């Protein structure tokens, strides 16, 4: 009886896990221009999306209190290291209400890409950031190619950026 219950419990957990994975599937948006923005990052530098035209951009909306975000960030750090020379730029926009925890997190995780604090206006421009994480992949021509809602398998994003990095800007 105990064995049967254990098998049932494992089955339910597996079902839950599968549903969770499916809920994080990307929402393909078509190729619409990424809304322009200009923010000041935590080191005081201006971060304008237009400065990265010609690069492939991963635009990650995250927060320090968001566990799935924390799982993704080490992978973005790795991608920034691995693909920067090919034209990748990761940009982090924190949706935290206060700056100090973001600064602390940035240092703790040794984030190697610009991190700025977002705002509701920017969130609206990107269709509403009403749940985290939300990650946009932007091609070399400044167009959004995909919007990932929820934790996303890093290999999915890596495959997407590899394809985009292989394409020259038009």
């Amino acid at each position: 009886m105990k064995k049967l219950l254990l098998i049932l419990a494992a089955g339910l957990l597996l079902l839950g896990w599968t549903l969770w994975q499916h809920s994080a599937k990307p929402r393909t948006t078509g190729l619409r221009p990424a809304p322009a923005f200009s923010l000041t990052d935590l080191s005081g530098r201006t971060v304008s999306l237009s400065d990265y035209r010609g690069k492939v951009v991963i635009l990650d909306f995250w927060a320090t209190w968001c566990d799935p975000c924390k799982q993704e960030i080490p992978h973005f750090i790795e991608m920034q290291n691995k693909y920067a020379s090919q034209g990748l730029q990761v940009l982090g926009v924190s949706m935290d209400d206060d700056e100090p925890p973001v600064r602390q997190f940035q240092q703790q995780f040794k984030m190697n890409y610009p991190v700025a604090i977002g705002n509701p206006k920017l969130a609206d421009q990107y269709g509403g950031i009403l749940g985290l994480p939300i990650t946009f992949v932007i091609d070399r021509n400044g167009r959004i190619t995909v919007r990932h809602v929820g934790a996303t398998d890093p290999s999915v994003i890596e495959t997407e950026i590899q394809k985009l990095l292989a394409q020259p800007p038009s």
Partner: protein
Amino acid sequence: MRLPSCSRPLVILVLLFGLGQVPLACAADNASMKTISPDELVRLLTAKTGKPLLFQVGSHMLYVQAHIPGSEYLGAGSTPQGIQNLRGRVGTLPKNTSIVLYCGCCPWSHCPNVNPAYDALQQLGFTNVKVLFLANNFGADWVDKGYSVAKGD
């Protein structure tokens, strides 16, 4: 090591699916909280009587973008300030006041805010508290479903 009760199912998950997949942090836990679905809440809000008080206990950035009309922002339930605000807000209310808490910052199983807020109200003796069940987030499970929304502070 004694883990908080909300972490125990996560330990099982980690054992089943591998380390590093699931964080060992307290998150929204159906088993210990009374929940209400978006549909049920809408029915309550449109009824002539018995409307609950609605408290958003998540991110202010999210609240400003979109919130349930009539709901009040009290601060993140995962922070001491948020819990202090909540305690202050309910301080003079009768213990049987109908209260619905919600957040929707991230997937239900990862929400750090609703459990502490719910626990605080339980400790204060409130007997009619529910948490709005938002499986994925406020955007997917409320806004995208077409339920009414207000913006701003």
